C-alpha cells in the first residue's frame, strides 16, 4: 500500500476508521486521529515508556509501531480503564499512594502495570520481577516508590483489584 490508507483500529472496544500514511506511528494516530490524548509521547525512541499501550493484551511502545500494523488488533489505552465513573483499581491506587506528581509518565505506567499484572498477578509478590517491570518506564518525579506501593495496593495480597472484582476493576 502506498500513500494514505484506510485502517480500522479497535481501541478500547470502539472502532475508529482512520485514513493514515503507513509511516504514522500508532501513538500519533491514537492522539491525533482518534483524539485519545491520554497516551503521551516523550522520547519517541522506545526508552521512556510514556507511550505504552496494550496491543492484544501486551504492553508495547506505541512510538515503535505503525498504526497500519494494528488493524484487527485489540488496542487498549488509559482512556479505556475507568468504567461506570470509577477509576480502575490501579489508577485509584496510584492516586492514593502518591504515585504521580506531574503525571506525564502516568498513562504509560498504568498501561505497563495493568498489562503485565493482568497477565501474571504473581509479579506483585516478587520484588525482583516487579523492579524489572517498573524499570521499563521512566518517571522523573516520584522516585518510583509510590508507583511500586500502588502496584502492591492494587495487586498484592488482599489487593483492591481483587476486592473490586468484576471486569478487572
Amino acid at each position, binding site marked *: 500500500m502506498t500513500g494514505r490508507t484506510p485502517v480500522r483500529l479497535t481501541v478500547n472496544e470502539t472502532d475508529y476508521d482512520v485514513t493514515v500514511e*503507513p*509511516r504514522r*506511528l500508532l501513538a500519533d494516530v491514537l492522539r491525533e486521529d482518534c483524539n485519545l490524548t491520554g497516551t503521551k509521547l516523550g522520547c519517541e525512541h522506545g526508552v521512556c515508556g510514556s507511550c505504552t499501550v496494550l496491543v492484544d493484551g501486551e*504492553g508495547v*511502545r506505541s512510538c515503535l*509501531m505503525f498504526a*497500519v*500494523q494494528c488493524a484487527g488488533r485489540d488496542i487498549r489505552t488509559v482512556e479505556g480503564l475507568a468504567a461506570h465513573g470509577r477509576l480502575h483499581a490501579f489508577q485509584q491506587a496510584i492516586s492514593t499512594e502518591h504515585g504521580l506528581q506531574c503525571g506525564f509518565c502516568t498513562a504509560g505506567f498504568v498501561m505497563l502495570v495493568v498489562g503485565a499484572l493482568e497477565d501474571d498477578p504473581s509479579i506483585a509478590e516478587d520484588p525482583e520481577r516487579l523492579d524489572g517491570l517498573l524499570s521499563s518506564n521512566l518517571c522523573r518525579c516520584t522516585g518510583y516508590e509510590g508507583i511500586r506501593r500502588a502496584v502492591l495496593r492494587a495487586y498484592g495480597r488482599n489487593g483492591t483489584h481483587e476486592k473490586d472484582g468484576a471486569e478487572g476493576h
Partner: protein
Amino acid sequence: MKPAPFDYAAPAELTDAVTALAERPETARVLAGGQSLVLDMHYRRERPALLVDINNVRGLDVITVDGHTLRIGALARHRAFETPTVAPAALGRLLSRVSPYIAHPPVRARGTMAGSLAWANPVSEWCATAVALDAGIELTGPLGRRRVPAGDFFVGPFRTARQPAEILTSVLLPLLPGQVGVGFCEQRRTHASFAQVAAVAVLTLRDGVIAEARLGLAGAADRPVRAHDAERHLVGREAEPEVFAQAGELAAAGSDPLAEPHAGVEYRRHVVGVLVRRALAQAREDSNGNYGDEGRDRHEGREAR
C-alpha cells in the same frame, strides 16, 4: 523526527514476502519487531522506500526441537526465551539467563531474536550467544534457502552476510546435552542500557576436566566473536578458578574492542577478562546442578516439563 514516507506490505505467506522484497531489495527493509528499525527510521538513518512487514506471515513464530537442534522462527520474540522450558536442559537455561538482559518487558514483547541477528549490533546478547553456539542462520531469498554459520554471518558492525533480498527465516541452535554448564555475565551502565561487554560461557565437563569450552563475546570487537585462545586453553584443564582467570586474561588480550564514550578500549578489554572469568565460574556451578536459589526454581521448572 518522524519516519520518512514508505510503501507498506504485510503479506501472510513467506513466498509473497520474499517476492515483495526481491522487487526492490536495495531500498526495501524487512520489518520484524521494529524495536531497532523504527528507531533508525525516526533518526532517518534508515529511509526505506518499502517496508515488508513479516509479522503476519504464518508459521514464523514457532520454536521447535528438530533432532539435535532448536529451530527458532523469525517471529519468536525475546520474551519467549524468558522461561527455561523454551528448550531442553542447558540450552533452555542459557537462553533464559540471557533474555532478561535485553531491554525491558515491552521491548521484549515485540523484538525478535532473528531481528537482533539481522541488525548485528556488536554488543547484542543474542549475537554473542549465536556465535558461541555456532548457530546456523537460515536465509530465504528468491533463489531458495541457504544456511550460514554464525561465525561467517557477522562481518562488521551492523553488517552481515545476508543479501538484501533474503529474509532471515530461522535460527538453528544446537541442543546442549550431557554434563554441560552455562554462564552469562554482562556489564552495562543501567538496567535498560545496551551491554558494554557481555560473555557467554558453555562448558562440557568430564570428571571435573573441561572437555569442550565455548566462549562468545559481545563488545569485544567490531562484531560478536568467540574467544578461541581462551577456549583452547581451557580444554583438558581442570575447571578451577586459576584456569578461569587465565582464560579471562587470554580473552582480554585477544579482544579488540571499539571505543565508545562510556567505555574506552582499555576499560572494555579489562571487563572482557573479568566477565569471562565470572561466566566460566557460573558455568561450572551450573553444571554441578548447584544452581543457587533462582536456578533451583528453574531446574524444577525444567523437570516439570
